[in-house]
């Protein structure tokens, strides 16, 4: 026999108890979430020393810096530097094949880009310097991985197929 309780009162009480429990835990959870989020952001910022100074202050500023660095596509948590270098011939092949796709979707065909990249150095912040060209893997489980040929201030977006077609090494 189900007791005849006044259910609306019980449900209101349940909603209030749940809300109070949420409020009581909110601060602790937010602190934990903050730690988690900050840890994520530190990882994201690993390619630019400026991020270390800015990412705690302002998400928007961090994002702007992130975009300026053209590291916008993936958080560094998922970006694995492999140290795979492309030589000039490979880069020229990529460019000559018209297979470099800029982040804005335009095809970059100039071989001069390779030379320009070659003259630059990479500031990897606190991380190891990994040469003038860096191929990074977007995310390892994706079937059609996007790869980023990066230099300071520029990132070229190529697909794995495009990289292979141009004779580039594809990190595993």
């Amino acid at each position, binding site marked *: 026999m*189900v007791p005849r309780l006044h*259910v*609306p009162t*019980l*449900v*209101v009480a*349940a*909603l*209030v*108890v*749940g*809300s109070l*429990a*949420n*409020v009581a*835990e*909110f601060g*602790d*959870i*937010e602190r*934990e*979430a903050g730690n*988690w*989020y900050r840890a*994520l952001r530190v990882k*994201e910022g690993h390619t630019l020393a400026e991020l270390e100074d800015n990412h705690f202050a*302002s*998400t*928007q*500023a*961090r*994002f702007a810096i*992130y*975009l300026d660095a053209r590291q*916008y*596509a*993936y*958080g*560094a*948590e*998922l970006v694995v530097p492999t140290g795979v270098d492309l030589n000039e011939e490979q880069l020229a092949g990529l460019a000559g094949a018209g297979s470099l*796709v*800029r*982040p*804005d*979707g335009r095809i970059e065909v100039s071989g001069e880009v390779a030379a320009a990249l070659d003259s630059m150095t990479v500031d990897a912040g606190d991380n190891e310097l990994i040469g003038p060209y860096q191929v990074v893997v*977007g*995310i390892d*489980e*994706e*079937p*059609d*991985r*996007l790869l980023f040929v990066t230099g300071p201030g520029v990132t070229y*977006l190529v*697909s794995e*197929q495009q990289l292979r077609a141009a004779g580039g090494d594809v990190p595993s």
Partner: protein
Amino acid sequence: MTVLAVEVVALLAMGAVGWVLVGPARGAVWQLGAALPVGIAATTLVELVLLAARVPARPWVALVVAVVAAAALAVARRDRSVPGAAVASTGGVSSVQAAALGVGVLLAVAAITAWLPLVNLTADSFRFVPSSHLLSVDGNFSGVSLFLLTTRGLVLPTVHGLAVTEFGYLRALGPLLGLATLGLLGLLVRDGTRRLSGGFPTALAFGAVALLATSSRFVFSTFYLNAHVLFACWLLLLVAMVRWLLLDPSAATGRRDAWLVGLLAAGLALLRAEGALVAALALAPLVVDRTIPVAHRRIALVVPGVAIPVWQLGVVLRQAASITQDVSVPGLAALGVGMVVVAALLPVVERIPRPLWLLHGLVWLGTVGLAVGDLGLARDSIEATVTNVTGEGLWGGSLLLLAAFVVAGVALRQVDAERALVFPLVTFVPLGLLLSLLRGHSYRVGPGDSLNRMLLHLVPAAILLLALSAAGRWRRDRDAARPAEWTAAG
């Protein structure tokens, strides 16, 4: 200032589209709450049509087309008012007052989010932004990978593509959708419990809103550039409207509600990878109910049933080297086609005994079958999920407490048309594990785990179910009168 102005115009325009589509029949406050979510879904569908037709479709083009179409619809409807079925709590607020309130809130939220850096961004956020940018550059998704298309969908790239700055996004979108979700939940609770006396409907509405608003995961998701708060809002709207259709199959608003249900189901399918499956489950109680006009059920099925294959085969497949490159592409396209087939064969489908139980059993069967094939993956996923909901997922005790209350409520009380709410919630239990098995890697411990984030999608609907149980009947009494609804329908 230009960025803020463009953002305001984009949000107002999408809200206006939704305002027209929702219509005034259920009251001005309901129309206001549902306007932006529905407008986003409509704009995305226009974008899909343009993309599939290979018309260069920058998001602003899609929005302008949606606004023009909505304006034409408004003019066409001017002399054909639908008899009202107003949500109880919306009485006394005129359309002008509601619209003014909506514009005021939008301006305030846009100003605050433009001034304060409130938006949270994680690695996942950075995957939406380039998709938006690439879509806004040439209107054709050039350069977007198959992976981004299959996992990030069309909705957020379309919406955030309305931002004019390079790699920009609409800062106010999440907070506005969070407010809309809270408001809609309150309205639905008050409407669904109006048979109670005194101040109980209002107390329950405030309690439900408070429970959701104090959830740290909801708050986080509201300020997080990702799809979660929109998914939760759309799912709440979808199951609530399915419930209305079940409650009053012959309502004058039924046809319009069916169109909106179809629109939201299509939106879910274009929002996240698992959206089509969740939408199919949410539609199931509607589809199998013989009391609802066949035409209405077909509308609700055909809209997502066409949109899903068009997206998967007409747009996503362009980026794939072959149809088998990502098995989700043909699989989800087949699901969409299946919806159309079911719509065509509704008289046959109706003869299947206990279809909801059968569908639920099939989901379990598929889950168990795949789990047996990869026990390690299934075990890892279950262990990670248990760890997440008991602490590491940063839910605190709220998720378990809510689950306990909901189970107790549903065990004792019979809510009107509860299968609209119970079926998708209960069937998500095996579906959650099935998604892990289908993608081939396990869930992980931590708040960023995908299932841990997906759980938020269910929370508003679960709170609604809990609150409605206050106005339900004792299940024992109901059982004496007739079998449980899920059993009777299924």
